[in-house]
């Protein structure tokens, strides 16, 4: 009911502005009054992203018909079922997600044919004529990396980012603080509920780096900084490495964020960027949110 109400309100706004007066325009149009399709949005993304389009890539349509007019665009970290429901409630049937929809890196659905949850999610998407497209590889490949541009803005750290040694390093020199104060500030700004830490809470810190998901990256980065920031590292890798570094006498620390806390802000940035070349439909960043909570 709520979603019908929203659509009707938007419809009235648009009729009021006279956009719907042309009969030509009315032939193939969504409730937003635009005939823009998901495929056309993606074509514009490819034109604007500033790097050659590499294939194979994860950045593909995952589900839905890319050629139907869209009512609005949601950008998000992860197209969970809850996010899809909230996107429909906001009147947006096109979701641009950074991470998978069907629970594997390549969204492989061949193994899921008999899975009742897959069927449930697919039904929801089809019933609501939604389209999901993934924007991962090329948003990271954009210069500067769109995900970290968003993260820096959300943290207010744009001026602390060190000139990058390479396109994939994200190092920072921040005003000196303690590990605990830093973690509290980060928790508030990223709205994260499940941050986990290694190291002395009172450790004075100023040099930090995002180290990626991989142990090799973590090992290469730790000697240059006080604090490694990671997300989606296996626990027997980065956490144990930093724990041993500390036990061997080094003054180091690790902040392990939920994957979402490390990358969701980058999809807020994606919405800002899309608005510079897509104006026909509303564009909204809707956070999928920290999946976890911690009991008292």
């Amino acid at each position, binding site marked *: 009911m709520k979603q019908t109400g929203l659509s009707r309100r938007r419809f009235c706004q648009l009729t009021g502005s006279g956009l719907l007066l042309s009969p030509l325009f009315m032939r193939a149009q969504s409730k937003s009054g635009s005939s823009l399709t998901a495929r056309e949005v993606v074509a514009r993304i490819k034109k604007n992203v500033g790097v050659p389009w590499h294939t194979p890539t994860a950045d593909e349509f995952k589900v839905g018909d890319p050629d139907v007019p869209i009512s609005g665009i949601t950008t998000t970290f992860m197209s969970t079922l809850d996010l899809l429901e909230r996107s429909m409630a906001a009147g947006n049937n096109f979701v641009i997600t950074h991470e998978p929809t069907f*629970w594997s890196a390549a969204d492989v659905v061949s193994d899921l044919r008999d899975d009742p949850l897959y069927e449930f999610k697919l039904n929801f998407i089809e019933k609501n004529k939604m389209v999901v497209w993934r924007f991962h590889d090329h948003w990271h490949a954009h210069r500067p990396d769109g995900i970290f541009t968003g993260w820096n803005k959300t943290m207010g750290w744009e001026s602390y980012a060190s000139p990058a040694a390479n396109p994939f390093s994200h190092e920072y020199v921040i005003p000196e603080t303690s590990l605990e104060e830093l973690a509290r500030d980060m928790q508030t700004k990223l709205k994260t509920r499940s941050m986990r830490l290694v190291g002395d809470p009172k450790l004075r810190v100023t040099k930090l780096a995002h180290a990626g998901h991989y*142990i*090799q990256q973590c*090992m290469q980065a730790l000697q240059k900084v006080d604090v490694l920031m990671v997300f*989606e590292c296996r626990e027997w890798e*980065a956490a144990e490495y930093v*724990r041993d570094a500390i036990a061997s006498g080094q003054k180091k620390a690790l902040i392990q964020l939920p994957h979402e806390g490390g990358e969701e802000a980058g999809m807020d940035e994606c919405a800002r960027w899309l608005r510079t070349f897509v104006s026909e439909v509303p564009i909204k960043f809707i956070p999928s949110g920290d*999946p*976890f909570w911690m009991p008292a």
Partner: protein
Amino acid sequence: MITSRQLIEQIQKNVGVPWQSQRSDGFSDGILFGSADATVTGIVTTFTPTLDVLRKAVNSGKNTIICREAPTYSRGERAPLFWRNGSAPSKELLDNDPVWHAKQDFISKNNLVIIRFVDNWDARNRDGQLRGLSRALGWDSFHGARGSGEDVYDPRDVYFHLPKTSLNSLAEGIKKKLNVGGLRVIGRPESTVTKVALTHGLLLVADAERILRERDTDVVVVGDAVEWEAGPYFQDLVTAGKAKGLVLLGEESSEEPGSGEMAEWLKGFVTELPIEWIPAGEPFWTLI
């Protein structure tokens, strides 16, 4: 007096399943560091041989460490991708790494022997990791198989029937019992839960599918889940009303009680040596 080679032979004789030197994991069961001819002065079991655990072993006069995780911060290059995310540290990287140097020096200076014992331990008919974890939680009497009066812990029988509680109370209780700070939960805190699947390590989507196919399950309690795989799978299950939640204990917290179980098992046939379980402890602390 026995050597580490003889210790492994005793383990092979008692494990109760045909010894396999290699399963899917990157490393093989057996000696990762140290000499097969070293005399065993004492045995430590642990989840992972951190520098801290190694020091405690040496301080207590024990030179042989039996572990689940390798000391080199990875499950190795042959491990499936969800077990390592990326490449294992190369030899060149390890050779030039000050942290590994410090640990390696400590291992060789103290003539330590580090033995991996995972695949064959897990292949037994009784799941030692599950039994250890269940008993650490005080859930022994809630295990589905207890009705038969037998202490079986079949590796696939992960089903527990708990007194009715809320997801939040369940999580709080586990957190206190296992003393784990970084326990993470997916699901609505107020949901009523009673049917629990308890397992350990990393949960894959296929594991979750099997559990839900086999039994009507409210909650799965496990070590960790990949945040683009089984994590969102459970978020979606909760939204769809098909399950109540997922409780993540952390890898160490979910596997460590199994190392305690292993120490008890070893005492059954290694009688001439001191045997001690030294928990590595949770690596993390939290603000909450």
